[in-house]
Every structure is written in C-alpha cells, then in structure tokens.
C-alpha cells in the first residue's frame, strides 16, 4: 500500500448476492399476531380479483439473513459518517443523530395528515416555527413548506411567478438561466410552461450584467440565478440585477442550493430576490439517504403570497393553528398531504441546536473551502480567481497534459479514502473539480484531503497510469456504463439453472 495514503487501509469486504438468490420457500422473517376476527375467504370475497398464486419470485428469507444482507450492502458505501464527502453543490455536512431520534417520536412519526387539526397542534407548531426561522434566515415575507425537494421547489417558485404575472394579464414567455446553472433549472422552467433562454457567463464566471440588460424584455418572466454561483462565487451585482428585472416587470428567482455560504451572513430578501427555494437536505442537515428524501421550501416576497400552494398554515384569533385548503389565487397543490413533514422536523431540530450561532457553521464552511483553495492553488488550475465562498472549483487543465482528467483524479481520490468531489460540473468549466468541504470537516481532515490531492497531482505527473486506472482498492473496479445503457438489465429475473449467490 502506498504510504501516502494515510486515511484508508485494507479491509475485509463480504460478498453478497441479490436477496432473491437467497430465497427458499417456507423461510420467514416476519410474523403477525394471530388474527382476532373471523378469517375472510379471499377467493370468495374477491372472486376474479384474487391473486391466487401469490407473488412469483418474492423473497423468502429469515430475519438474520435480512440483517446480514443489508448490513453487508451498507459496507460497500462511502458515507459522511465515514469521512469527508466533498461533493460540490451537495453540501454533505454532518447529519445530527438527534434529528433522527425526534423525527421518530411517538406523536410525531405516528400522526395522520387527516386527523383533526385540534389533535395536530404539535405538528402545526413545528411547521409554524420552522416557517418563522426560515423567513428570518432568508429575509423573505412568506413561505410554503410543501415542496418535496429542491426541483419541486423550483417548480413551485416559477408557478408562483407565472400566477402573479398572469394576474396582471400576461404570464410572459421566457425564463433566463445562466449557463452555469444546475440542470434542474431549465428542466423545471419547461414544466412551468416557459421557454428557456440560456445566458452566457461573463469573463469572471458571473452574470454579465450589461449583456443581461439587453436580454430582459417584456417577454421575460424571470431570471433563475444560483447565489453563490456554482463556481462558489458571490454574485456581487445581484441587487442591480434585481433592479434591471423589476424595471421590466420581471422577477428574480434564486436557487438556494448554496445557502450554506450565506446563512447568518446575508439575506437574499435584502438583496432583491423575489422568490427562492431552500434545500433542507443540504443547508439544514437532513440526511441525503442515498438520494433522498429532501424538502424544498419556497420563500417569497409579499407580492407572491396570494398564490402559495394550498393548504395554507394560518394562526387563528384564539392562538390555534390551522391548515386552510382554499385560496382563490393559489397555484394549487404540488404534493399530497402537506409536505415531507419528517424532513421538516429534522431541519428544525438542526436550527434549534445552533440558534443564531448557525452563522458559525457558515463561517467554518467558508473557512474550510478557502483553506483548501489556498493549498491546492497552483497544484490544480483555478480557472476563475474571484474569492471563493463555501466551495472552490478547479480544473484538470494541468493534469490533462498527461492524459489524466477530472474523473480519473476523482476515482483515485477513492483509493485515498475520500469520496470524490463533483466532476464535470459546472458546464462552464471544462474538466471541473468542484470541492465543497462544508463546516463539518476538521483542520486535520482538510489537511489529509489536501495531502491526498497533492499526492494525486504528483502521480498524474510521474505515473499517470495508476490514476487513469483507479480506483484500485474498491470491491468493484470501474463499471461498464455504456454496456449498462445499451442493454439495460433493470431487475432480477429467476434464472435456470439457478445463478450462483456470490460474485
């Protein structure tokens, strides 16, 4: 083993087949209490609707096999709990365990969305307090907690803009989106019924304000902007951008994916933003869980408030809280049953743990990103030199000379015990290395990461093959993605003869 690899070492890794391959008729992992009413005869009760033969291929295993199966699978994952996960724009910070505990409390996890509101005051108070905290953090006037994730928040925000403009007589045609934006922005604009006009970034990777001035016409409904940008750079001229839009009757949408750079420091509402979403699974520490669930609350200025999705949380004169289902100008529902409530509980637990001290988390996140930038500048090319906030974007230009690209470096980082940074994004940086350490990394972990990145740069210069063929230490090597897409195998099917359990 390479002595430069300080963070990781060899580890036994169990083989494990698919659960369907362990199945044997008659095994059970779950028993129900005995039925205490007369049994129904399904064939008689359901007739032709009855599935007599049972579900073909469904697993039949014991409890210990279930535990071992999923525990073995879990050991094949990297996770924040194991170490730094510097995926840019994903804000992979520590997910506090107390959040999981409170979300599972009897009286929280057990509550039905249709139970009487008099018996739901606890849930409604949680929603109300979270609303107030997020409004204070964003500097906005009104909020909806309904959207299930960031992309749905984006859609909600654009539908609010559309409804507002429609009310004035014309929803307009276009949404402007910088070429540095997340892919969800243009995909969302289309669902909201808008044409997308991509706008080119200026020489420093920021919005070209003079160019924008020409593009904002009476056809433009909104500009969707990410701040800090996907380069990790604060859009300094945002208030001016807002003025340009407002002068033409258009609105400013802010993608709040990078709010971890701003919380407690500055407020989008004060910068002229009209509407924005927050990713609670990024800035507010709810776990990513291998891809979700998240929550994407949308905060807005007063002008958009009448259009919020129903139901609306209101405070009654007697101090009781209620969800009101009807608002004449509402855009409607974007999701059944109010919200991803359990995710909102976790986010509030995070906010309460910090209180106003959440500013310290922002400061540490920005400190870590700048510390890493300082040490890797020159080792990797920095395509845009403006000050970094919570993340730093390098490119593979120096390593490309030896045939090593960002994906190779990312894969080699795995051997050093780190999850890769974000590769190939933003699109305006060819061969991007987008690094977001978050506040959850110690001085020591940042140093280990810097050492690993320097060591890989050296390898790229002296023995590029080891980088290009990485990772070398994982249970599988690089996987054939082209083959997977050409002939998709998307489910297990019983094979004859029976396939072997281990790889």
């Amino acid at each position, binding site marked *: 083993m390479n002595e430069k690899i300080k963070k990781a070492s060899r580890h036994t890794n169990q083989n494990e087949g698919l659960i369907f391959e362990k199945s044997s008729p008659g095994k059970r992992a779950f028993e129900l209490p005995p039925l205490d009413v007369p049994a129904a005869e399904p064939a008689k009760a359901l007739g032709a609707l009855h599935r007599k033969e049972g579900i073909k291929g*469904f697993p039949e295993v014991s409890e210990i096999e279930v535990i071992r199966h999923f525990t073995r699978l879990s050991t094949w994952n990297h996770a924040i709990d194991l170490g730094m996960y510097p995926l840019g724009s994903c804000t992979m910070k520590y997910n506090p365990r107390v959040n999981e505990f409170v979300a599972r409390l009897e009286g929280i996890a057990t509550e039905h969305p249709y139970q009487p509101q008099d018996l739901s005051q606890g849930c409604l108070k949680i929603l109300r307090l979270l609303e107030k905290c997020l409004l204070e953090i964003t500097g906005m006037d009104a909020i909806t907690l309904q959207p299930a994730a960031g992309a749905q928040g984006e859609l909600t925000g654009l539908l609010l803009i559309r409804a507002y403009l429609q009310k004035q007589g014309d929803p307009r045609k276009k949404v402007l989106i910088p070429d540095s934006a997340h892919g969800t922005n243009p995909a969302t604009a289309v669902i909201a019924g808008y044409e997308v006009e991509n706008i080119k970034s200026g020489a420093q990777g920021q919005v070209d304000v003079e160019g924008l001035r020409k593009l904002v016409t009476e056809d433009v409904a909104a500009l969707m902007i990410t701040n800090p940008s996907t380069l990790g750079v604060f859009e300094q001229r945002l208030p001016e951008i807002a003025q340009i839009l407002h002068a033409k009757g258009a609105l400013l949408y802010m993608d709040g994916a990078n709010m971890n750079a701003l919380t407690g420091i500055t407020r989008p509402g004060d910068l002229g933003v009209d509407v924005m979403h927050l990713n609670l699974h990024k800035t507010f520490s709810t776990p990513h869980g291998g891809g979700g669930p998240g929550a994407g609350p949308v905060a807005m200025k007063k002008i958009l408030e009448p259009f919020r999705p129903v139901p609306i949380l209101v405070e009654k004169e007697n101090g009781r809280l209620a969800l009101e289902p009807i608002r004449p100008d509402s855009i409607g529902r974007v999701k059944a*049953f109010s919200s991803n409530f359990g995710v909102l509980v976790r986010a509030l637990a995070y906010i309460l743990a910090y209180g106003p001290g959440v500013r310290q988390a922002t400061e540490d996140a920005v400190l870590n990103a700048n510390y890493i930038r300082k040490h890797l500048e020159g080792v990797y090319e920095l395509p845009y030199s403006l000050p970094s906030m919570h993340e730093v974007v390098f490119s593979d230009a120096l390593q490309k000379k030896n045939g090593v690209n960002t994906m190779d470096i990312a894969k080699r980082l795995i051997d050093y015990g780190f999850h890769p940074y974000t590769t190939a994004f933003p699109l305006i940086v060819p061969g991007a290395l987008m690094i977001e350490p978050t506040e959850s990394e*110690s001085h020591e972990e940042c140093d280990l990461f810097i050492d690993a990145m320097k060591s890989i740069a050296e390898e790229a210069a002296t023995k590029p093959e080891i980088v290009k063929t990485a990772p070398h230490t994982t249970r599988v090597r690089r996987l054939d993605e082209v083959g997977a897409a050409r002939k998709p195998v998307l489910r297990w099917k019983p094979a004859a003869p029976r396939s072997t359990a281990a790889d």
Partner: protein
Amino acid sequence: MRYLPKSPVERQEMLAAIGAKSIDELFSSIPEKYRLREALKIPGPYSEAEVIQYFKERAAENAAGYTSFLGAGVYNHLRSVVTDTIIQRGEFLTSYTPYQAEISQGTLQAIFEFQTLMCQLTGQDVANASMYDGSTATTEAVLMAQRLTGRQRVLVARSVHPEYRDVLKTYAKNSGLRIEEIPFTASGTVDAKALQAALKDDLAAVVVQSPNFFGAIESYAPLAEAAHAVGAMFVVAITEGISLGLLRPPAEADIVAMEAQSFGLPPSYGGPFAGVIAAREKYVRQMPGRLAGQTTDSEGHRGFVLTLATREQHIRREKATSNICTNQALCALAATVHLTLLGKEGLREMAEQNLAKARFALAELLKIPGVRRTFDAPFFNEFTVELPRSVKIVNSHLVREKIVGPLALGTPYPELTKHALVCVTETTPRAEIERFAGALKRALEQPV
C-alpha cells in the same frame, strides 16, 4: 458548538494559512451594506436534551394514544424494528446519490432490488428508483403518457384520490394537458359507460385507482381495453400497496403509479413517503427518475450503476423527461427492507388480515341502526358508509372517547355528505373495532 470540529486556535491557524486577518475578510465579496449586523432572531442554541424536550412537548399536543380509522392514502401497518435499524446505518443514511458507483454499490444493489420488488408487485417489466410520492408519481405517469402518445387529453376517474387529482391539475396547467373526469357508478367503481362515451383518438391516457379512493376494487381488463381501443395509455394508481398481497396486479396497465408508504413507512403527518413508476419495458426511455442497472466491472464482476441517465435533467437539461433530482431513496430502501422481511407469505398474510378486519368492521357498523353501506363493489381494507347524521358531528363525539373517526367525504365529494371512509388494518385490534362501533352507536343516539 457540538457539531463543529474546530477549536478557536485551529480557526486562527487556518485563517493565518490563508493569509486572512479575520473571518470577515473571507466574506468581503458581499457588499458591506447587505451584511447582517445583528444576530438572527431564532430560538436556540439548544443542547441535545433541550431539542428532545421541545419535540416531546409538541408530540404531546398531537393524537398519540388515540385509535384511528383513517386511511385515504396514508395507512398504519405493522413495522419491524429491523427496518429502522437498517436505514439508520450511517452508510445508507449519510450517503449521497450513487453517482460514484465503485463506492456506492450498497445503495445501487438495494435500488436494483427495490425495482425488482416493485415489478413483482405490479406485474410490470421495469420500475424506477422512486418519485416523491404517489401523487407526483401519478402526475409523472400522465406526463409520460403524453410524451408517448403525443396527445393532450386525459380522462381521470373521479374515484382517484382527490389530492392526487389536485396535483395533476397543478402540473397539467402549463403542460398543454386537458384533464376531464369520469364519474363513478352506484357500486363505487369507474362508470364504464361514461368512459366509453368519452373515448376518442385524441386521448393520451385513462387514469384509474384501485382500490380506489372509496376502497372499491376496479376490474382492470374492460378499462384497459377501452383505453387501448383508441390508442391511449392505461394508467393505474395504487395508494395501498399491501392490497397487492391479495389482489391481481395491474398487468393490463401500461404505466403504474404507486405510493409505497404502506411498506414500512410511518404516517409522519404526510411524508416523507416514496412514489413508484412501473411500466412496460418498451416505454423505459420515456420514464422519469433514476434507474439502477446491472453491469460488470473491468474484471468481469457483477456490479450496478445508475443508467439511462440521458433521460435526466443533469444531462438533458430542458429536454429531460422530468425535473426530478433528489428522490425518496431512503424511503425506498425502507420499503425494500420491509418487503424483504414480510416476504411472500408475510405479505399475503398481512393482506388477508386487512381484508378480514375490514369485513368484520363493516359487519359491526352495519348492526347500528341507520348506518348503511354506500357502495357494493368488493373492497380491501377501506369501505364507505352512510351515516344518518353529519360525519363531522359524529367524529367530534368519537374524539371524546379517544377515537379518531373515519374521513368525512362531503368536502371532496359534495354528493357524499354524511358518507364516511373507514379504514381498518391489521394494526386495529378487534376490541378497538368493537369500541368504535359502540361509540359510533352512542354518537348517533345523542340529541342533535
């Protein structure tokens, strides 16, 4: 602060290494006048004990200790402690979307197993890695049908969950879709005559739910035939997945949209749950959401990757099949573990208990003078009854006996005022069903 791994000295050392005099210097790109001068006005900081205390106090203001007869898309089922044990493993809980396949094989294989289970349950060929919930899955299924047929008109049964229809209407407004609704018969199922009358070759999809919002089970074959006769997609929504342990799967459907909440996820005041889209293999390239696929590594070992990503927003941007990015992965994992625990026999037995208990409850309620059954179609674990007086008033009496009564149907269906949707699952003991029937009888005897 306990979550932050830095001492004041370390912060100073790091600042010095950067060459910054103070932390404020790192924020110099934010114009001075926009920087907050005062601390945020939010409560805290709370110790761990205080955080727990706050939420315990809120929990006490809710309905813990009440027996509930609510379903309507969110169901109470038995859950094994094993499920929660597994999904709280940090390797699952605190990992990201498995884009880096070599260090995400655990998540990827679990998704592959989830996709397989969803196919087995629904009788479909392919299933995705999850959508937000049943309502958005149903909407995305309709948008998928729109892309596949190039048509804009959609017939949706009024017996589809009212909130699912609301979500569909929100999305449809700007997608060029025209939504029309099909009534239900006196039996509680889709009015096939009305459907026939509405069939035309401009139809993109026919959408039904089964068991439907009233608990009535639909017969798929004639509905599928009607849709297919004009080249439309037959879309089936399922809110109660446990029913598939006993009911024939919607094999006639072109697209199935399912809510997976019943598979080990708590009601949690409405979320997070997990939506599923399953479909015929030939439609896979128009599916929304992530898909895990089997492949091999450079040494020939089996492995899994996210595949067919050219459908997705991070590659296709404005031409993507959907804007979904974050999905409900951990909820889908919970469903995978839960269904693996239940297994073939456990799922069948759970479904049978639901069927038996709901039939017992209906029989008990029908003994009460003035209570009658609304619809006569076969049902699974939910049914509709008509009461001789307002459901809301009856429910206010039941609450005093620590019972959360059935859902009043009058708001979503004005013609069903005084009708109530009753749900009984394997978690409802016989004694509680009898106590409910007794309390209902007394409530109906109360002077107006």
